[in-house]
């Protein structure tokens, strides 16, 4: 896998919300590349469009104009059925609010992406339990989300985002509902189990304590990418700055 292989390629991405009485220009021409094997963090002030950008990248929101390729496929060129299929196979999600299904056990929650992809329930739950072991929750496989702490729930959510081996994982504020120590644990876990040479990670955060774990950080403001900086500590990508603004 070479660094030139792109997981995500955004060109002049524009998205405007129309709330009836006003139009909000959330994305005003985004250019951004994310490489395979990379952990990219997206930072910026509240309301600058971070969530909107990763929603478009993850294929759950349509842009108004511009191009957004994921593994060489433009979301806009997919039929709605293929879009679902592409999402089910290639994208993993981690949310700020965990968003586990409250009536399912930890293992069943982790199994959901596999079941969506057509795997038999029993096999899926078994695979899920294996992955729970990897995130340190082997004994909590049968617990309901309500019986788990916030940090444990986020670890279950991380296992769920990885279980079907997606090639792109998008995380929106994965640590901001957690206290400092737990947040660090969760990002360390993400870094250790999720980063792989055939996979890209994009994490939206305003949590400065975890910036160190990024390979590169893209700073956004007012619907635009201000700059993209490689983190010095992670030298795999210390080629010339990929800033495209």
């Amino acid at each position, binding site marked *: 896998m070479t660094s030139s292989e792109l997981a995500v390629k955004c060109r002049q991405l524009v998205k405007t919300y129309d709330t009836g009485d006003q139009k909000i220009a959330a994305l005003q021409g985004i250019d951004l590349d994310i490489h395979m094997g990379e952990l990219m963090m997206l930072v910026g002030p509240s309301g600058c469009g971070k969530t909107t950008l990763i929603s478009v990248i993850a294929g759950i929101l349509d842009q108004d104009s511009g191009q957004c390729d994921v593994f060489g496929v433009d979301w806009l060129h997919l039929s709605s059925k293929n879009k679902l299929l592409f999402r*089910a196979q290639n994208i993993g999600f981690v949310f700020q609010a965990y968003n586990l299904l*409250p009536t399912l056990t930890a293992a069943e929650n982790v199994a959901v992406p596999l079941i969506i992809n057509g795997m038999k329930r029993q096999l899926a739950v078994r695979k899920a339990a294996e992955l729970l072991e990897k995130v340190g929750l082997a004994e909590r496989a049968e617990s309901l989300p309500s019986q788990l702490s916030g940090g444990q729930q986020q670890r279950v959510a991380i296992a769920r985002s990885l279980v079907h081996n997606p090639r792109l994982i998008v995380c929106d504020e994965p640590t901001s509902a957690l206290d400092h120590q737990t947040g660090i644990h969760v990002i360390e876990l993400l870094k250790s189990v999720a980063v792989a040479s055939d996979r890209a990670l994009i994490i939206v955060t305003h949590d400065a304590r975890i910036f160190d774990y990024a390979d590169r950080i893209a700073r956004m403001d007012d619907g635009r990418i201000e700059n993209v900086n490689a983190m010095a500590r992670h030298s795999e990508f210390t080629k010339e700055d990929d800033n495209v603004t």
Partner: protein
Amino acid sequence: MPLYKGMIKARLYDGTFQTCNVTGLDDTTLIGGPPVMLKGKLEDLRRSDGVIVDIDGARDKLAKKPTVNGGKPVPLDIGDTLELNDRRAVVVGIAKNTRTFQSQPIIYTTYSRAMLYAPRERKLLSFVLVKAKPGEDIARLVQRIRDSTGLAAYTQDEFKTLTVNYFLKNTGIPINFGISVLLGFIVGAAIAGQTFYNFTLENLRQFGVLKAMGTSNWVLLRMIMLQAVLVGSIGYGMGVGLTALFGYAMRNTILAFKFPWQLLVFSATGVTLIVIFAAMISIRKVIKLEPAVVFKG
């Protein structure tokens, strides 16, 4: 055959009065008597002053005072006497009757005795029952009676319709019942729909998560339908169970309680309609749901 039907005041043991529904049967044939005799025989009516009372009346409105203070009233039994319009009447039988909406006790006696009990009116003949000879064409017979007597004559079915129409036109019963049923239906639909819709709204985020992870609308639609069917079946089961229980509890009272299978089908249809209605609005909401909501805090 002559048949008398009228309301007569009965004087009870303790001196109080109770209006009773008195039927005077043809003296010789006793046609038109109660469907089931619990005590005594229909023929006993021929004994002097003999009357038959229905079990519900005997137990309740016509019952004698408790023997001990605060005890249960003693049901009227064979050998007890009543006074109908100052004339002695001796109970010779207890009958079981089809229940009606009217709650007066029912008393059977012979036509000729009913004439004595009844307050004076110019004409006391209420009905004449006619039994057709086997093979006789009923419609023609009816016509013949009309022509020859100048009285109104009806077949059994015609008479039924007439009675039903009387209730429909002259009493508030059908309208009140209709309004109750309609109201129950609307309130039921509103509550069921609202509850189910609320449930969907509460779980909208979960539906969004499933959508984002690639679940198709079709699968979500099936999930909601399954839920709706489940909720509907539970609600239906509970409703039918409670109604049956109510009927069971009412079995010893004089209230009419009928639970025909048509009612089961009717309410099943009603519940199904409510469930479909409730599920439709939820399904609409979920199908229109943007998966991007999952990132909203």
